[in-house]
């Protein structure tokens, strides 16, 4: 009966995507932890993401126009007065050789993603795994999701950039990932094609995916292993331990003026209540010791 279905759906999905909810608990809840102290800003993760996910290289002119398609980007932040070329008289930096802080910024796979409710056709939705999914086939390109993303990690195909690939460059494309045409929004998926393959293998063997069995492309390429990825629902996974150590909580939590904690862990724009799945471990600065 449709009414019964309606009530079942309502009960089941009432608080979607959490672990430990009485209504539903999930086997997988993908999460990531990035240690900014170890990150060197080399950009290997960016390159790996380009290779794995068939990202188009747009060229210098289009990059400057704001049309870049880097799902993972390295952001550089200088402290007050450290930015090269600033006119402000800087307080003399105590440790200028430390340079800028690098933050690899990718889709935070928010549990309360602001991009999901605003898509008119439900192309952005929430998977039971805790991922923020983007369905290319459903996207009609209204671009509201990107406006609502505080991290600006959603990228729109303003041109059919795959047409720039001249033979034999199309051989480099990853066959597991679709090539997006113009008019479609895309973003980091936590390498969902790799997750899907790992889940299928595990299911064939009647088990769950083990910790370390699946790596995202960025995690795989990082020379210093700054990126830790895994299943937060598995209490013994590396990423769950990293979150616990940083005293990061996940689940349906309201943040009411959480006092600063001595642990290094933080999430970007936490006050927006987006509940990101990516924790950053702050760089240890020499001037805080």
């Amino acid at each position, binding site marked *: 009966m449709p009414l019964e279905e309606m009530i079942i759906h309502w009960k089941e999905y009432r608080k979607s995507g959490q672990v430990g909810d009485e209504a539903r608990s999930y086997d997988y809840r993908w999460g990531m932890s990035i240690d900014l102290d170890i990150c060197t800003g080399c950009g290997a993760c960016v390159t790996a993401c380009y290779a794995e996910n068939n990202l188009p290289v747009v060229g210098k002119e289009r990059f400057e126009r*704001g049309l*870049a398609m880097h799902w993972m980007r390295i952001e550089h932040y200088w402290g007050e007065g450290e930015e090269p070329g600033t006119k402000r008289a800087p307080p003399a930096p105590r440790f200028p050789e430390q340079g800028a802080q690098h933050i690899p910024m990718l889709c935070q796979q928010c549990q309360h993603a602001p991009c999901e409710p605003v898509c008119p056709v439900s192309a952005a939705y929430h998977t039971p795994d805790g991922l923020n999914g983007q369905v290319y086939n459903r996207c*009609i390109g209204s671009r509201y999701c990107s406006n*609502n993303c505080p991290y600006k990690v959603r*990228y729109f195909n303003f041109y059919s950039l795959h047409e720039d690939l001249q033979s034999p460059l199309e051989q480099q494309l990853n066959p597991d990932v679709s090539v997006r045409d113009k008019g479609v929004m895309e973003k980091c998926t936590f390498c969902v094609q790799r997750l899907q393959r790992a889940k299928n293998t595990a299911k064939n063997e009647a088990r769950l995916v083990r910790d370390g069995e699946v790596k995202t492309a960025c995690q795989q390429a990082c020379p210093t292993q700054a990126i830790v990825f895994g299943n937060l629902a598995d209490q013994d996974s590396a990423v769950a331990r990293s979150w616990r150590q940083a005293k990061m909580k996940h689940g349906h939590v309201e943040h009411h003026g959480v006092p600063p904690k001595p642990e290094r862990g933080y999430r970007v724009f936490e006050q927006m209540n987006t509940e990101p799945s990516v924790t950053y471990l702050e760089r240890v600065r020499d001037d805080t010791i």
Partner: protein
Amino acid sequence: MEAEIRKDIAWAKINADVLRSMETPRRTYWLMVGGCALLVALAFFAYTYQYRLGLGVAGLNRPHMWGPYIANFIFWVGVSHAGTLLSAALLITRTEWRRPVYRSAEAMTSCALMTAGLFPILHLGRVWDFYWTFPYPNQRELWPNFRSPLLWDLTAIFTYLNCSLLFLYYGMVPDLAIYRDKAIGWRKKLYRALSLGWTGSDQQWRNFRIGYLTLACFLLPLAISVHSVVSADFAMANLPGWHVTSFPPYFVAGALYSGCAGIITLFILLRHLFRFEDYLTLPILDKLCWITFAIAMVWSYLNLIEFATAFYGGDRFDLEVLHEKATGPYAPYWWFMIVGGIGLPFLLLARRVRRNLAALMILSLVMNVIMWIERWMILAPTLKHNFMPYGWGIKWPSALELIITFGALAWFTLLFLVFVKIFPSLSMYEIKEMLHEHRDVSDRAVREPPPRPIAGAAHAAAAP
């Protein structure tokens, strides 16, 4: 107090004057229509370029995912609101001077909505799939997402277009019967179909009156809710400068402001084009100017209160966006909008300005330019200076977007010009009611010579 229209106009003369507007158009009219059609064709070809190559050719980028197309959409929905205000709200308050003006104001509403409705479609990345936003049952059991403010937009605009077209048509039925009686050729067939056999019987009039008031009572909350829903596109987003609770009334006030200016423009145009000086009189224009001034003051207040809340709130992001608006790259346009939008209505306080048609024409057009810039200034600074510094970026309106903007203006003008030549742009029966309300015992019909039949197709069917 001056009478709005002369009391001694013969009723048959009203019919004759309005029927005269149906004559075969003169050269000026054809030049205007031709010019508009040319601009529309140009905009259409510009659009096909975008369709083939993608939205990048419109200059959009990250973070400026929305640009002048959305500004156009909001602008035209806004322009449409004043027609409903004039027609429905002033009907409910039984304001007499609305009667000569409301038909053209309602026509403006419908034409503006038919222009606005183009933009949510042509700004899409995959335009050919736009119908997925409609809730239709399909084999894949996919439905649109009603949580999205864009869907609320769709519902509201569809409802508003539908209801304002029906309201316009409903009010025209008695006038279409007059046309039917006098027309020949293709026009006669058209009006006979549209007037539904209206003969002015008492039963018809009684149902008509009750239905008309009921429709007006529906249309008024609709008009207010539509632009509030359109403002929800911004207010429901989390961006600084957009996530503001005062957006719904701010948008409605801005809509009425630009719509009233639009009514003044069309009033002067029609008065000149069809020589309707007896009906579209200066005292009525005077009152329209007063309403425009009042609305402009409401808009100015809501504008200033938005800045005040950002200023006093202390939210870092809101403050930076406000700072960006005032001192960033868009600042000259923003200041022009603020100073012009708040200051220009004060010119309407001078009686000399209110009675000078040329001055009012220019003033109303400038006001609408300012309101277009206002819509653009809602979009651009917030998108430029959003939360994430690595998502900051600048965008100026591109040539393609400007061509399509002017094409939309031409489309609106074309629709309106076609309307006034096919349908009565003055409501004959309502003007007669206005005269009847204020009649002296002695004044009555002065017989006029019967008007000429309306020119139609080459062949003429037998008149009744």
